[in-house]
């Protein structure tokens, strides 16, 4: 699944450099002529899973969502996210800032965010208020202001069509998003986003994530050519049928046995459950591909068995990052808790 653009290597002028020619990412934050921090440039969210699951910090605990929202979420999950708006070339939703690189273009009265997944946001800085009764839109209506050196952006007027994440957490038209951007030095920005939606959330959901300046590269065009970018969750392998009794033998608790540190949302202990003729890994349904191999939106699970045919562990391979970050993922080994 390629949701965001590819990359080119370009030596960008105007970037502070160390004597060896490398970008000096710890140089001071540039400032505009009116002495505001200049956030202009290309930024990329630090590696994260929030765009997959907005609740990734705590993804086995769905108590942040009220029951009605949780029901909608479970339905989206059960459908393997097939109705996700972005699969139909519609905007990703309010979690887009976690998902793709973006370019900020700053002027005193307006700041534009050019999104790596296509489209743009306009943040009005001219002191206007949020409209009282806005026409609901996919990206909402955004106004910004400076609080010291922090850009604070308030967004309202969302429609309820978009999802908060790839998994399918819903939001209502009453969603309000508050974002804080603080560029701490040339190469680094602290980003915080708060989702407030009394109709779907039990309390505001606040996420902080570092953003990194992207020197000497650029965003290439991303045009969604309709259904071609759908994730390859082709559905269950119809030849693989399991009785509930068979599924039970996979259910259990598994402990991480590897030595490389785990990235969120992966945890040292994961739970596989069997429910309604389907296996779940945390809240994520598993899509059977063979007797031992299961697909999920987060990645692939391969169970291992001892000589007696009892399941004794699993290997988890995280889906390749659509932004192409980092090395190819290595399988993470888990052993079953007796």
């Amino acid at each position, binding site marked *: 699944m390629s949701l965001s653009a590819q990359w080119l290597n370009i030596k960008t*002028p105007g970037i502070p450099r160390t004597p060896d020619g490398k970008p000096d990412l710890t140089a001071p934050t540039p400032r505009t002529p009116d002495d505001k921090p200049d956030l*202009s440039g290309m930024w990329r969210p630090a590696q994260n899973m929030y765009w997959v699951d907005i609740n990734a910090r705590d993804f086995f605990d769905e108590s942040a969502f009220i029951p009605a929202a949780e029901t909608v979420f479970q339905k989206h999950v059960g459908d393997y996210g097939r109705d996700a708006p972005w699969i139909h070339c519609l905007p990703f939703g309010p979690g887009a800032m976690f998902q793709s690189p973006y*370019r900020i*273009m*700053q002027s005193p009265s307006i700041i534009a965010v*050019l999104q790596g997944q296509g*489209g*743009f946001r306009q943040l009005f800085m001219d002191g206007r208020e949020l409209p009282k009764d806005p026409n609901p839109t996919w990206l909402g209506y955004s106004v910004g202001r400076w609080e010291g050196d922090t850009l604070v952006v308030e967004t309202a007027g969302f429609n309820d069509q978009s999802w908060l994440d790839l998994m399918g957490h819903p939001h209502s038209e009453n969603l309000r998003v508050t974002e804080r951007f603080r560029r701490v030095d040339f190469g680094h920005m602290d980003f915080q986003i708060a989702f407030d939606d009394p109709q779907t959330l039990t309390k505001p959901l606040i996420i902080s994530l570092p953003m990194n300046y992207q020197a000497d590269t650029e965003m*290439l065009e991303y045009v969604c050519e*309709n259904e071609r970018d759908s994730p390859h969750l082709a559905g269950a392998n119809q030849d693989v049928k399991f009785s509930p009794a068979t599924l039970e033998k996979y259910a259990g608790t598994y402990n991480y046995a590897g030595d490389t540190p785990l990235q969120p949302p992966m945890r040292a202990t994961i739970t596989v459950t069997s429910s309604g003729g389907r296996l779940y890994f945390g809240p994520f349904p598993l899509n059977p591909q063979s007797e031992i191999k299961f697909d999920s939106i987060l990645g692939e699970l391969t169970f291992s068995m001892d000589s007696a045919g009892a399941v004794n562990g699993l290997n988890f391979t995280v889906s390749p990052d659509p932004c192409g970050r980092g090395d190819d993922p290595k399988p993470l080994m888990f052993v079953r808790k007796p």
Partner: protein
Amino acid sequence: MYWIDIVQDLKDESIFRMAAEAVFQKRAAAYSQDWPGTHCLPVGPGALFHGMYRIIQSPTVVALLFNSDVGAGDDYRQIFLDGRELPKDPNPTWRGYSVGRWEGGTLVVETAGFNDGGWLDWAGHPHSEHLRVTEKFRRVDFGHMDFQMTFDDPEMLEKPLTISVPVNYAADAEMLEWVCENERDAPHLPPASQELKLSPETLAKYAGTYEFTGQTPPKKPWLATLTLAAADGRLYLGALPLTPKSETTFDSGFGTLQFSLDSTGLVKALTVPDGLKYIPKP
């Protein structure tokens, strides 16, 4: 109306090479049903002729946020002003790769690396991957900008095609979000088989030159005179094929053209969208 028909001023297709003209005729005969915009894809390099856009300028990058791509929806272009050259062998894209420079007070933008999926206009004029576009933006005062666009595509065009349009600053206005919700916005054009057929004699009656008449002159100077021609059993407004809806009404894809007849059956007047009225030139 350049986004509808890029050669509306020329009233002549001869600037296109024969292969390009064949593609155009095929698309026109199919009522532009495969226009990329119908499938929520970018409409092509003529997107700036239609709708609003916002320019955000920095010394190294100029961004065009446009609300004008009725196909793909709101999108942007990045124009690099840091002195880089156009890539030698770019990966073809819908919007191409743009670099800009200042020539005095004029921003000159060169774009190459288009794919051949876009159309030059809604009517269906094609371009190849060799298309090069040169745009010149010159802001003459606060509220006005001269915009010139040159299309150079030796594979499709006999010679470069240059179009100039004035662009007006939109004060106290803003762009509303435009998201293409897939096929739901497809134009509701009838399939060709259901098309009403009019006799060549009827069509010939409508052919000719029409002059604007009325109190408020058309906002666009090229609308002062309209030329209608009948060819191959079809009526054309300039190069734009019209679909008959009745003996006297035709669909142009951007609205209805209505002919009124006098008691002897001769054309008395032509009304086009926006209520503009024309009379046949004697």
